[in-house]
């Protein structure tokens, strides 16, 4: 048994099995809060704790799966390329909107962390949370955060955006399709885009474009913001 646990096969297998079950539950219940990443991660943590297996052992296989984050990030260029024509007409409002919105998010995270006395390492790990998981993890690592925490924060952010999107649009009277799409993609990446696609084709395409554009902007914006405030 020990030999099996200490081979990468264990980590790879348990991850894929847990993820398939998580995706199945998510699909059946259609509830954003039952997010496949969170469900499967919690299931795996539960099993590891139950059988007293440490993270290092699990990660012998886990890191083989994590490896694919890097090439998957590169191919994010493909949906961006397919949708880039949408930028042509309204590029100025879209780019300014994404930048201003992302910056507002950073300011709010900073202020709230100070008010609630959340420590620096948590604050840093929170900063990239609106970007897609790949960018969030990479940025977190680059700015001295904890990538594992950033991934979890990112998943929770996605769920929030997915659930709250419609209410926010109603309260703030955001009626325009382009604005809605950009807003969902910028604030809550892939899960926001899932909601945008339910709203309509234009919303979906703009949301998916905004994930990557917001990611690229944030990569530059976050280190600048940290420098500015001396975080």
């Amino acid at each position: 048994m020990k030999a099996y646990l200490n081979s990468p096969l264990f980590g790879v297998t348990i991850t894929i099995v847990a993820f398939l079950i998580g995706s199945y539950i998510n699909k059946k219940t259609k509830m954003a809060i039952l997010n496949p990443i969170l469900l499967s991660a919690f299931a795996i943590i539960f099993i590891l704790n139950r059988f007293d297996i440490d993270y290092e052992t699990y990660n012998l296989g886990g890191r083989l799966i994590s490896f694919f984050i890097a090439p998957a990030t590169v191919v994010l260029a493909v949906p961006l390329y397919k949708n880039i024509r949408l930028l042509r007409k309204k590029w100025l409002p879209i780019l300014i909107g994404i930048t201003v919105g992302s910056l507002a998010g950073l300011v709010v995270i900073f202020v709230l962390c100070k008010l609630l006395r959340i420590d620096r390492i948590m604050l840093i790990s929170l900063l990239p949370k609106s970007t897609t998981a790949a960018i969030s993890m990479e940025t977190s690592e680059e700015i001295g955060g904890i990538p594992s925490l950033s991934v979890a924060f990112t998943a929770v952010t996605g769920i929030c955006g997915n659930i709250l999107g419609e209410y926010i649009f109603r309260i703030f009277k955001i009626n325009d399709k382009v604005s809605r799409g950009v807003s969902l993609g910028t604030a809550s990446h892939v899960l926001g885009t899932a909601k945008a696609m339910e709203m309509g084709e234009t919303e979906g395409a703009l949301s998916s474009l905004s994930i990557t554009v917001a990611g690229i902007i944030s990569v530059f914006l976050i280190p600048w913001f940290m420098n500015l405030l001396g975080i």
Partner: protein
Amino acid sequence: MKGLRQLCIILLILSLGEILQLRFNMSVPGTILGMIILLFLLMIKVVKLKNIDSISTTLLNNFALFFVPANVGIMVYFEQVKAVWVKLLIVIIISTIVVMAVTGLTVQLLDRAISKQKKGGKHESLS
């Protein structure tokens, strides 16, 4: 062989991104540089969509799976998170609402202002 060839293109671009990042000590992650390089190559049509379509579909379809092991990593920080998780949740919910509202409103207001200006400009040229 097709899948392998496509994977190879992506890995080479990724490597270029990582090497550039290390060589020039940039604050931008190598993967993001790789993405920007790929976007550029697609736009100048050095790389065509059909050269990378199957690998990108495979990777993007399984995107969420790749983040599971990293997420399991929070078990290492369990004690740290346990003490503050309610506060963290508050920060996440409020900041997500702010990003969404500010982004949406900015795009909507600017878009209206710009189209108004354009219409105004047309009227002037007519008169």
